[in-house]
């Protein structure tokens, strides 16, 4: 057991910190900017620069242009970039879609997609949820029917965030309607400019835009299917595990940020709060919870570094982070009293540069996205602790 980084990894972390300090976002939350800046030119440049430096692929196999170094490099990179909120394409794309294509794609697909994912030429939205398939994702009904060298796709997806600017959607569809629901799903990587695709915006309560995407007789070449036909559910489960690792890292660093900014804000604007021992005790509780989250995130990293798929650990990090987000914003807003009510547009300006309000609604959302926390707890109990399966209808 050891809890420090070997010199090479410590040095790498310093390099990333420096890069992140130079390119990190402004330490404020501007609702209009936030809508678009993941798609910005700057964000694409950051991604391209990260790829030029070889940082995105340090942990990858050599035949894919990687360096086959410890998975901790990828982990450290994600941690440090998340801390300063460096935007580099869609944060999730490379960490979720990349590994899935690497593992399940054909040689031709790997050669075609992976370099473009790293360079930022291909960006991906996630096409999982449907109006009637949310937590029960395996009930999805959007269907793809084989037609010669193509599939014809019909149906609709919802909560497809980023689809209005990404180049592709990573799409889960039903390819066998007779099979049990987990055994009739396939995965496609579909360009969003194909004929028959329409995107409708959905405005969310915290100024976030998401989308509904409609597929109307969309013709997709068969070589855009990733992995075996009807085996998509199992690939999806792997991708969801990786998504939770990414969520855990990003959520942890977001919360660290909001916490540090809250303390800075209190020091500058509300010394009366920091002089109150009860308030300090409340903040210490949050600080304790952040350390427990750090412990879960590092435990998750350790599982990944050991070459295993994270499941219970990533789920625990996700549950802990999202519930802590709600507790943290609640505590800080409560300590501020009525000043905590002010948001952008108020002449006083919002406290903590608007990040409290953002985190309030964002953590409300995050508790159920990426697999609702209730489902995460089921995963922990069944996959992690080996409890018998709860009763579900087939």
């Amino acid at each position, binding site marked *: 057991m050891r809890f420090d980084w070997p010199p090479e990894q410590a040095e790498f972390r310093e390099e990333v910190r420096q890069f992140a300090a130079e390119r990190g976002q402004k330490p404020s939350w501007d609702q209009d900017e936030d809508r678009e800046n993941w798609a910005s030119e700057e964000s694409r440049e950051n991604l391209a620069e990260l790829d030029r430096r070889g940082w995105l692929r340090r942990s990858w196999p050599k035949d894919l242009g990687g360096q086959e170094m410890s998975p901790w490099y990828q982990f450290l990179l994600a941690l440090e970039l998340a801390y300063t909120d460096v935007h580099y394409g869609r944060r999730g794309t490379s960490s979720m879609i990349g590994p899935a294509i690497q593992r399940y794609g054909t040689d031709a697909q790997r050669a075609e997609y992976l370099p473009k994912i790293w360079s930022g030429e291909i960006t991906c939205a996630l096409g999982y949820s449907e109006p009637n398939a949310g937590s029960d994702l395996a009930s999805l009904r959007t269907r793809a029917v084989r037609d010669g060298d193509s599939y014809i796709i019909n149906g609709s997806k919802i909560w497809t965030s980023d689809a209005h600017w990404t180049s592709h959607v990573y799409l889960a569809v039903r390819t066998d309607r007779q099979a049990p629901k987990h055994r009739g799903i396939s995965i496609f990587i579909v360009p969003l400019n194909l004929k028959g695709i329409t995107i409708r915006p959905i405005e969310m309560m915290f100024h976030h835009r998401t989308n509904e995407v409609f597929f109307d007789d969309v013709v997709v070449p068969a070589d855009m299917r990733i992995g075996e036909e009807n085996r998509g559910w199992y690939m999806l489960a792997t991708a969801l595990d990786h998504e939770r690792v990414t969520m855990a890292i990003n959520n942890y660093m977001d919360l660290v940020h909001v916490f540090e900014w809250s303390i800075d804000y209190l020091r500058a604007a509300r010394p009366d709060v920091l002089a109150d021992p009860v308030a300090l005790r409340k903040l*210490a509780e949050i600080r304790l919870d952040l350390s427990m989250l750090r412990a879960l995130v590092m435990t998750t990293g350790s599982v990944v570094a050991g070459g295993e798929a994270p499941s219970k650990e990533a789920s625990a990090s996700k549950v802990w982070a999202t519930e802590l987000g709600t507790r943290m914003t609640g505590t800080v807003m409560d300590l501020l009293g009525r000043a905590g009510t002010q948001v952008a547009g108020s002449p006083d300006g919002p406290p903590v540069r608007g990040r409290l309000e953002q985190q309030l609604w964002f953590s409300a959302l995050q508790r159920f996205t990426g697999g609702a926390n209730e489902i995460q*707890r089921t995963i922990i109990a069944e996959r992690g602790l080996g409890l018998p399966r709860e009763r579900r209808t087939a």
Partner: protein
Amino acid sequence: MNLGLSDTQEMIRDSMRQQLQREVSWQRVSAVVADGGHDAALWKRLATDGWLGFAFPEVMGGGGADLLDVAVALEEISKSAAVVPFAETMACVYTLTRHGTEDGQAALAEAVVEHAGAVAPALGESSDDARPAVSDGTLSGSVRYVDYGHSCTHHLVGAFGSAGPQLFLVDARWPGVTQQPLANVGMTPQSAATYASVPAIAAGDEDAAALLTQVATVLSCVQLVAFSQQALDLTIPYVRDRVQFERPLGTFQAVQQQCADMVSALDATRYLTYETVWKVDRGICSAADLATAKAAASRTAVFVTMTAHQLHGGMGMTEEYPLHFFSRRARERSLAWGSEQESLAVLARYVADETDWR
């Protein structure tokens, strides 16, 4: 960063576990607890097998174990619920062998290695007029809450000496030492000790006293992790096997979700605890680090053991079933060496000024 046990640590864990499984039954623990003392036969056995010398450095003829090795052994002992002053003795041994005076180290080696003795830290609370002090080589004063005070041959007392606060080693069997047994919620041996002109060896300086507090605190975190782990390990098979409404309890979502929260809190606490052990071993543990680990361990152990009681129902409350050892001791250790609230109060002193703690 590597959370796996080393080969040596695996060996420590396995050999300690096997020995305890052979020798320490729940009935034996119950009998020792009912008797009010400690398991003297097991202590002798641990001495014979070399466990008492294993944290002495190799240059002193010991096993050269570091604090992580000690923690791994302690976790196994704590899971067995054996009533022995292992954490106490190891805290004193680790502190004095790393930071003690020559006199102190020699006396310690004689007491522990040669004579299979045990040492209790006596740093507990004292009333203002009875704070231990040393003059002319003898120690006088009183200390409350000395864990295993009666069981140990020696006490390592925090007292005011000629060089300020120091550690002094005294023979607890000396006539000038009187001990009043205390009764605590953990049902573990404990006393209030009074020292009347007892010969005392200057064993460590102020830094050694600070280190003893750190080591004892973080070893109490290890005990809390062990109690939590045992409570969880008892609960999982129980809810898997117990059938109600014609189905195992473990298939109920409400039960599953509680088990998930138990293991998540435990995983986080285990990491923080062992990270803090590692930091103490390297001499880089801050007050905030220590308070964080203790607050986490205290909170988690009470949460996990009390949830275990809820999921066990009546069976968990019986004295025939071992859960009560762990819930009792979790409650006791959660309050020793800084309760959750006391630890949060320490953390609160730093929370507004910390940098780069992430």
